């Protein structure tokens, strides 16, 4: 492999990191908000609003049922309005973040469902406000599940970011497609795939480590 190719791959690694980390942060932050909203507004929950709950749930389901590659194209006008262009690395952050939100929301809702109802009842008996229950009971008690959710999301985003290469986002997916596939360079293909495997493995190990550390048993 030429040194130019090595530089190209290194640059692609940084682009992938940039895409995954930025969209991950935005997607996870907003996804947690949406997941908490899904959880607390359900019937008989601390902020029961069944109509709103069904509305959020519908939005989440729609968001999750659109394949990423389609979502990316469908969002193009919105992306251009938001960041001025629908092509390029920064532009790819928009569909990546938006795809991550409903994904995270469902995972967060699942993690919160695992918190025993008795804890919420205990907090209510102490006179906790709904906000206090969310911040001091629900989220800390679901920490392990939330870290697992974040891990799964980051790994999914590594995959999605490769697809984003199709709209000129750069990153490893673009390198693998342009040089490994189109110009038939099996070495480039192999190296990019290996790097992705290592990234996924690394994220999973990091996630497992934090989950383990958050468990006090």
């Amino acid at each position, binding site marked *: 492999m030429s040194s130019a190719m090595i530089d190209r791959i290194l640059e692609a690694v940084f682009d992938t990191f940039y895409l995954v980390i930025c969209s991950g942060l935005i997607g996870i932050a907003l996804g947690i908000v949406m997941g908490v909203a899904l959880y607390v507004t359900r019937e008989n929950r601390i902020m029961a609003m069944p109509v709103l709950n069904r509305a959020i749930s519908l939005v989440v389901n729609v968001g999750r049922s659109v394949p990423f590659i389609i979502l990316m194209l469908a969002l193009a006008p919105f992306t251009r309005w938001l960041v001025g262009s629908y092509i390029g690395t920064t532009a790819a952050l928009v569909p990546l973040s938006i795809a991550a939100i409903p994904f995270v929301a469902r995972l967060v809702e699942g993690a919160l469902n695992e918190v025993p109802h008795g804890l919420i009842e205990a907090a209510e*008996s102490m*006179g906790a*406000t709904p906000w206090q229950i969310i911040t001091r009971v629900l989220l800390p008690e679901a920490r392990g599940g939330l870290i697992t959710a974040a891990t799964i999301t980051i790994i999914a985003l590594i995959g999605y970011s490769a697809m984003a290469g199709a709209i000129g986002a750069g990153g490893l997916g673009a390198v693998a497609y342009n040089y490994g596939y189109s110009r038939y360079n099996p070495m480039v293909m192999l190296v990019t795939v290996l790097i992705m495997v290592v990234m996924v493995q690394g994220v999973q190990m990091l996630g497992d480590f934090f989950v383990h550390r958050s468990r006090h048993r």
Partner: protein
Amino acid sequence: MIRLENVTRVYGQGARAVTALKDVNLEVAPGSITGVIGVSGAGKSTLIRCVNLLERPTQGRVFVADQELTAMSKTELRKARHGIGMIFQHFNLLESRTVRGNIGLPLELIGTPRRDIDQRIDELLELTGLTERANAYPAALSGGQKQRVAIARALASNPQALLCDEATSALDPQTTSSILTLLRDINQRLGLTILLITHEMEVVRTICDQVALISGGELVETAPVGDFFTRPATEEGRLFLNDFLQLAPSNALLQRMTAPAEGDSLPVVRLTFRGQALSSELMTRLVQDFGIRLRILQARVENIQGRTLGLMIVELEGAGATFDAAMDHLHTLDVQTEVLGHVQRHD
């Protein structure tokens, strides 16, 4: 301190409606311990949850410390709840917090300064005997220790009342007894009013001043514990008590007994003594005044809140008329008699 007035709780609506509590009236005096007892499904849990409005009564009013909880806004209710501690069957501790963190939680909720919280936690650790385990996580604690943490947590904001929802039901008998001792201790030291629910008579008998029997969502009998155990006023009370305090004939005795009197057989009688009736003098009088010989086959004596309850199965030897006279005499002394059968004279 705690007063329920005509509290009714209905689940569901229309034809599917289930009445969990029906017109319940209960008063718990300041500084006393009241136990609500009943079989599972009788409505105990609903009743205690109605006190701090974790469940809102469909009808009726709830007062704690002379404030009507059922008339409060959400904000007022949250404030009132700071004055009502609660502990649970499954402890409900936060797994993500240490013992200290769990105990401090109610104080964090009301915005107590950190220094005061730490000081209060130290006091409560001392009170509940948990100082050594202050930095442990709940997963590392035994059931009894977890319930102690829950008690410390419930006491953190200096409540006037404590609600205990089957607090000892998940614990072994020895741990149960140590938790009950702790509850009695804080009741006396802090003048804390306690309302507990349980299905165990032993719990009521050990620490309660007053007992309320719940059955099918209704309070059927409310009485001082000493009265309830020695002289239940209702049929439900008697049935419940019989399951707990009974003296059944042993298998060996059952095999020897025949239902009707046969020739030379002797009656086997179960005597139930209440209050002060049980005394050796009574036995002596039976022998001296009625010429009855008495052999004790089985016996059990219980002391409940200063009252004595005695159960005894005896074999009596005496002629027909004296036997009846002796039974009458026992009845005047409020000793309950019950002929269980007859056994052959065996000498």
